[in-house]
């Protein structure tokens, strides 16, 4: 590997110490504030702060972390964690269950810290440390899906430090005290270095001594940096990556973009004709998902299925038979049959007219700031046009896009949703009627305002279950809703971006060994990855 | 070192010309050049006051700047010689010129407002002239500056003044003071008074004349105001369209102008005191120097034009004390009537 020979000696780090550089367009300079509540904190979760349980979003597998185990009460209204003993905060104080209880109760006292609305939406009732190693969560209502947020996405903070902080929101935390494998070495707005926590509770780990995490506001400089072989671990869209990056060192440079969610066309069913499921189905048949994926995304984001199940990540959850039956894919004939059934007619120019004889015209709002989305929508409108539907692309400024999206002021909207360790999280985000607000009022989920009692019942049912097979059954029923009702049209799958160079570090997560989400911006996964990496011995 | 305070170290031979201009030709531009000075020959003796008059645009300033070697492109000296106190001015390089500039001859420009650097004080401008030529202690420079300002009637307070703080007349006098910092042999003055009021004009001229008589420098003085020069100059040169058409002692020229142009010029002067009589001007307009008329340049306007005038340029004719460029006085001229 000659292409990356120049980088190893850089930086004057002490002999033998291994430094890993992360190249990720984080979008802002670092503030050197490592307060985990601050929206612009450095990347701390996973490296400095840790969760109770590591939940792998790609496999759904759980791994004991700061908790060695947990137990649901039979009525699912009580959850008890056993915390790990022998774990020390980096200032030497021991970690106990009290820290866990403190962390959750702080969010109860302060709305601003309640990141997952666990208190705000009436999920949790109380959190108490039973003893030094046991902490008990009492629920107001059953919500098994909250487990992911409680165990996997809440970073446990040291009570002895945070209880002295006056306003946790405004605290500028330069030297955070955590349990994680790393502490903050140095920080400037342009780069943060993480150094190894030598007293980390997982003995012998981490093996990477130092992590350099520069701040890239934009993809281009990050790509350039990566291309020069200065980075070991990339985390953004790299155009033409095979040519641009991999080709220069095929042996070491690998990328893996596991799908974790979908990018959708939201359909505002409040608009004329769009309330008709035949029209929505027609729209879905008019989407050339393959072309969007290949032309706008270099194929990096694979085409989605109408069931909205990212594959292969969640292939167990997919009702393949149902998907095949509907056979959503670019199919002008089906578009025509569905639309004609709904009373539409085809004009002499090949474009459809509404039942009252007017041209059928829609617009699609899009965030003009996302280059890949703009490209995708360009392909989309062309594909709609081919199928006989006029769709005008509105590439709006980010704010305007967000405003229209959250207030439901659109015909179609190109949009994404947030995902979790099972497809349920995303389906709920998109379909749950409780999130739907009347047009004109803000919402941050279910933008297309799908409201269907049967769907809502399914979503609630899942939330009471802990058995995976039962859950799959519910999700398959939700898939049926997607396929038949087409509330939204999944276009491409969204992926985690990750480029990995094994010249200096090996044991990266791979398709075969998906021990964590490989994206350097995924938390806490990136910490898990760092713990698994092995420096190459020189 | 020749300064005002030191006595003259040489007694120049008064008959030896100080400045000897021979057949000087100056043109502006490359294609279709304007021949602004054409075959001008002129001698100036030490201590002499020579006036040059002529209409606006006839080449007076160009002649002066050519002599002082201050022309800048597109003007250039095409041919001719200028001998100044033994220096062949036309051939000297800038570096060779520098030492004699200002020490041996100085120049008073047409417009003092523009000729004084607006951002330097009068004192600074006097000083840098001195510093350029000799090493003088600051105190002595200051003393000399005050001295020359007093000579021209300006309060030395104004050493620290900037040009815009002085009135037009004061600026002109400051220029003259500057020209006197060394005691040059020759001062070239280009319409130093034309921007001034008649009252100020007269005072200034008187002062110049007095200084000249005191220090004995020669003055070449350009104006288009005939009456001004009539009072102060020893000899008078009249220019027309780039050429010297008549040269002679001032009184002589005023009394017996020979060249028809000079005659016309003098005839067009209403008098302030004499009897009121109707005057006639010279019809026509000065020629375009880019396309001068054939033959004599004055020929299209000349009341006494002859055939030969339309063909041949007239020679520079010789009289006892005067020179005239006119066929009327040429050797092969038809019998010409002596004017008056």
């Amino acid at each position, binding site marked *: 590997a000659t292409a990356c020979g120049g980088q190893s000696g850089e930086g004057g780090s002490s002999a033998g110490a291994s430094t890993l550089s992360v190249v990720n367009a984080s979008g802002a300079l670092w503030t050197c504030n490592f307060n985990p509540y601050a929206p612009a904190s450095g990347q701390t979760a996973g490296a400095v702060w840790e969760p109770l349980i590591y939940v792998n979003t790609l496999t759904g597998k759980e791994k004991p972390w700061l908790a060695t185990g947990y137990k649901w009460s039979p009525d699912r209204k009580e959850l008890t964690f056993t915390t790990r003993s022998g774990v020390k905060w980096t200032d030497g104080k021991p970690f106990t269950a009290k820290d866990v209880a403190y962390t959750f109760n702080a969010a109860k006292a302060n709305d601003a810290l309640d990141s997952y609305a666990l208190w705000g939406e009436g999920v949790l009732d109380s959190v108490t440390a039973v003893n030094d190693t046991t902490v008990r969560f009492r629920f107001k209502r059953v919500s098994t899906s909250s487990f992911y947020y409680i165990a996997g996405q809440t970073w446990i903070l040291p009570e002895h430090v945070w209880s002295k902080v006056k306003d946790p929101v405004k605290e500028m935390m330069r030297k955070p005290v955590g349990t994680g494998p790393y502490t903050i070495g140095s920080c400037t707005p342009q780069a943060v270095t993480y150094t190894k926590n030598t007293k980390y509770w997982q003995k012998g780990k981490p093996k990477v001594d130092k992590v350099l995490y520069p701040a890239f506001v934009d993809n281009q400089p990050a790509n350039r940096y990566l291309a020069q072989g200065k980075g070991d671990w990339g985390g953004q869209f790299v155009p033409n990556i095979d040519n641009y990056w991999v080709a220069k060192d095929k042996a070491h440079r690998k990328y893996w973009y596991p799908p974790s969610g979908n990018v959708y066309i939201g359909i505002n069913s409040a608009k004329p004709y769009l309330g008709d499921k035949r029209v929505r189905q027609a729209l879905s048949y008019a989407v050339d998902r393959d072309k969007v994926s290949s032309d706008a995304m270099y194929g990096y984001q694979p085409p989605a299925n109408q069931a909205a199940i990212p594959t292969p990540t969640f292939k167990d959850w997919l009702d393949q038979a149902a998907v095949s039956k509907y056979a959503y894919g670019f199919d002008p004939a089906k578009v025509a049959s569905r639309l004609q059934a709904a009373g539409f007619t085809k004009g002499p120019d090949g474009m459809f007219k509404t039942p009252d004889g007017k041209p059928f015209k829609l617009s699609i709002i899009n965030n003009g700031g996302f280059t890949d989305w703009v490209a995708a929508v360009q392909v989309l409108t062309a594909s709609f046009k081919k199928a006989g539907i006029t769709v005008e692309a509105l590439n709006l400024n980010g*704010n305007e896009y967000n405003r229209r999206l959250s207030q439901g002021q659109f015909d179609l909207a190109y949009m994404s949703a947030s995902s979790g360790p099972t497809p349920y999280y995303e389906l709920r985000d998109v379909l749950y009627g409780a999130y739907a607000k009347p047009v004109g009022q803000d919402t941050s989920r279910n933008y297309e305002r799908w409201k269907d009692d049967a769907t809502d019942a399914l979503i609630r049912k899942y939330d009471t279950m802990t058995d995976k097979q039962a859950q799959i059954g519910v999700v398959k029923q939700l898939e049926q809703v997607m396929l038949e009702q087409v509330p939204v049209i999944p276009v491409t799958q969204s992926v985690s971006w990750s480029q990995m160079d094994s010249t200096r570090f090996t044991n990266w997560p791979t398709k075969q060994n998906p021990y964590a989400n490989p994206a350097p*911006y995924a938390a806490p996964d990136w910490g898990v990855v760092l713990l698994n990496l092995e420096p190459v011995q020189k | 070192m020749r300064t005002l305070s030191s006595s003259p170290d040489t007694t120049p031979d008064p008959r030896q010309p100080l400045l000897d201009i021979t057949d000087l030709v100056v043109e502006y531009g490359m294609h279709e050049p304007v021949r602004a000075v054409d075959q001008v020959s002129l001698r100036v003796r030490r201590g002499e006051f020579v006036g040059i008059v002529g209409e606006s645009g006839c080449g007076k300033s160009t002649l002066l700047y050519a002599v002082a070697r201050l022309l800048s492109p597109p003007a250039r000296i095409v041919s001719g010689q200028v001998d100044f106190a033994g220096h062949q001015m036309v051939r000297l390089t800038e570096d060779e010129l520098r030492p004699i*500039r200002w020490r041996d001859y100085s120049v008073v420009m047409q417009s003092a407002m523009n000729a004084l650097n607006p951002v330097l004080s009068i004192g600074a401008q006097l000083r840098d002239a001195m510093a350029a030529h000799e090493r003088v202690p600051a105190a002595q420079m200051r003393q000399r500056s005050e001295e020359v300002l007093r000579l021209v009637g300006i309060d030395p307070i104004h050493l620290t003044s900037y040009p815009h703080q002085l009135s037009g007349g004061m600026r002109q006098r400051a220029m003259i003071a500057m020209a006197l910092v060394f005691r040059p042999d020759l001062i070239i003055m280009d319409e130093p008074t034309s921007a001034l009021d008649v009252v100020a004009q007269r005072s200034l001229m008187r002062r110049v004349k007095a200084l000249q008589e005191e220090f004995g420098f020669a003055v070449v003085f350009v104006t288009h105001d005939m009456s001004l020069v009539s009072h102060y100059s020893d000899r008078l040169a009249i220019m027309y369209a780039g050429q010297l058409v008549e040269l002679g002692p001032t009184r002589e020229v005023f009394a017996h102008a020979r060249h028809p142009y000079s005659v016309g010029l003098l005839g067009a002067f209403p008098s302030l005191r004499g009897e009121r009589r109707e005057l006639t001007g010279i019809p026509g307009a000065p020629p375009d120097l880019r396309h001068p008329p054939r033959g004599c340049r004055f020929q299209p306007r000349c009341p006494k034009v002859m055939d030969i005038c339309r063909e041949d340029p007239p020679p520079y004719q010789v009289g006892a004390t005067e020179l005239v460029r006119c066929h009327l006085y040429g050797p092969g001229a038809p019998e010409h009537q002596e004017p008056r």
Partner: protein
Amino acid sequence: MPRLIRRLEFFVVTFWAAVSINFLLPRMMPGDPIQQMMARMKGQITGSRRHSLEVMLGLNTHEPLWKQYISYWGQVFRFDFGSSITYFPDSVTSVISIAIPWTLGLVGVTTILAFVLGTLLGAVAAWRRGGVLDSVLPPVFIVVGALPFFWVGLLFLYVFGVLLPWAPIGFGYDITAGQLSFNWQTISQIVSHALLPATVIVLTSIGGWILTMRNTMIGVLSEDYVKMARAKGLPSGRIMLQYASRNAILPNLTGFAMSLGFVISGALLVELVFTYPGVGYLLVQAVTGQDYPLMQALFLLITAATLVSVLIADAVTYVLDPRTRGRA
């Protein structure tokens, strides 16, 4: 002295206008920063987090505009612009104060360099009219001046940073070195990182100064006082400096002052292209991140800097040009 009063009036009114525009502009724009933030975080923030963020950023209070305006003035006088939204909870003042040295160092130095070099070259070109310099510089810099400088930046970056990796391809210093400290090594690193963007800025902006200086200088050289200086037999160096250049520079001073004031925002695109952590970079971020407080403070800073530079230029002109003094 009426002149002074007029200047004061200008400064006060301009400052007021700038503050008011700063206040109004972001408020006239629809949209909301949290969604921007959520978008930037690539879905790391779930929808349910929205409320907590609103509370955190204090965006859930809705005062009437005039009240906001008044308290905004209070902030301006206290130099307290609150917390940045992008960099919450870091204060705007601290975010900006970190960026400013980089910009001042890069853009400030290059602006001055471009002015000094350009003015010198322009003066020399005019002085040696028709010489090699004079026939080569103007046409070359007319063309160079019209080049889109982000494009030049990209090309430079590609050629000197990527093809022949002579120069670093981003950042203000060698980030692998960790914390910045004051020693020769760090300084030389900083200089080497600034070299490429600096070259681009100087190249694309020097032309303007060369051309204006050359043109004014040519005008000045035909003035009688320059001729007079020659007549006085002054050495040419002195004529060029004391007589020609000094007078020719005067009309360019205000322009220079304004460009100095714009230093802070001026090389925005260059900073962006070169990932240079200066104020311009920050501004683009503030704009795209809908970071009102940061945007406002930056705007104000830029305007104030311009005003102050103009004030200084006024003072310098006052010193250099006696004509501006004498008049009552």
